């Protein structure tokens, strides 16, 4: 990092590493779906792939029906897998390849622009162009500024966590090369997963806020209320009684 030659070559290294991440993901995905996919006795690879996709499909199913799931779940899964594999590149013991692309500010910024731009595109797809524009300026005309701050906060959060961790590892490795970097790498596994998850969850919440208009929320609330008239009071009272019963002995 200190050498000016490496500093000048940094963009190329980052682009090459991002390409490596994409290649790994594409080849991994192709290997996972190769062969016969079945619903009665899925094999190991199909199990692994479904395990990874299940979370995102569940997230997207909270937002809407089949068309929403088909549009949103692959988007979220792509964000998560790309960021996760990029973050994990930092622990590879190979020079040049161990610069995580997400520790260079341009990559998180590009990812955040993709996430917020994708949110706007999904908004246009499900609400129509007028609905998307209306969502930007109604009820508060300043709402369009929040798209810019969303990009900034998403990208700065990812960059700060992964870049800060990478910077610490580089600084420590330059003074103590044995032992301590291993501990830092193990600790760095936590933000690598958590930041990928947080980026995806925040994107999911942006999308959920965009494709549900206020009227839909009210309709959903009315439906739940109508259903709850018959069925829900009993479980609700059950839950409160359980909470009270557990809380009482501790008091």
């Amino acid at each position, binding site marked *: 990092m200190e050498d000016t030659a490496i500093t000048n070559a940094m963009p190329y290294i980052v682009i090459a590493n991002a390409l490596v991440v994409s290649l790994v993901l594409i080849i991994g995905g192709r290997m996972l779906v190769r062969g016969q996919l079945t619903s009665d006795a899925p094999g190991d690879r199909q199990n692994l792939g479904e395990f990874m996709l299940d979370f995102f499909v569940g997230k997207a199913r909270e937002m809407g029906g089949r068309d929403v799931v088909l549009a949103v779940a692959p988007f979220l899964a792509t964000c998560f897998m790309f960021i996760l594999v990029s973050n994990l590149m930092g622990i590879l013991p190979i020079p040049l390849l161990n610069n995580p692309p997400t520790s260079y500010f341009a990559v998180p910024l590009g990812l955040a622009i993709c996430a917020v731009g994708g949110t706007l595109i999904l908004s246009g797809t499900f609400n129509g162009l007028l609905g998307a524009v209306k969502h930007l300026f109604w009820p508060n005309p300043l709402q369009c500024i929040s798209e810019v701050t969303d990009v900034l906060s998403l990208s700065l959060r990812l960059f700060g*966590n992964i870049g800060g961790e990478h910077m610490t590892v580089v600084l420590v490795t330059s003074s103590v090369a044995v032992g301590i970097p291993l501990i830092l790498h193990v600790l760095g596994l936590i933000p690598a997963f958590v930041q990928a998850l947080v980026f995806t969850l925040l994107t999911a*919440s942006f999308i959920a806020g965009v494709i549900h208009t206020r009227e839909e929320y009210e309709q959903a609330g009315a439906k739940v209320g109508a259903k709850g008239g018959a069925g829900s009071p009993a479980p609700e009272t059950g839950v409160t009684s359980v909470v009270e019963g557990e809380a009482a002995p501790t008091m």
Partner: protein
Amino acid sequence: MEIVLLALVSIIPIGLGATVAALSMRRISVSAIEGMTRQPEIAPQLFTAMLIGMALIEALCIYCLVVALMLAGSVTAA
């Protein structure tokens, strides 16, 4: 003298930001763990909500880190 002062000033934002963020994160995690122990069946939803809240607080801390890095950069430039 000015450079020393600038270097000292550049650690203030990250110090204050990290302290306040740590205190608020403690509150979030304590409440989330309390909720999880009381009702283990909603633990996944609580965990997700906890992560999002922590990320929003952490963003402020990261802004402090960025400001501190910019100040530190101005120290090395001076």
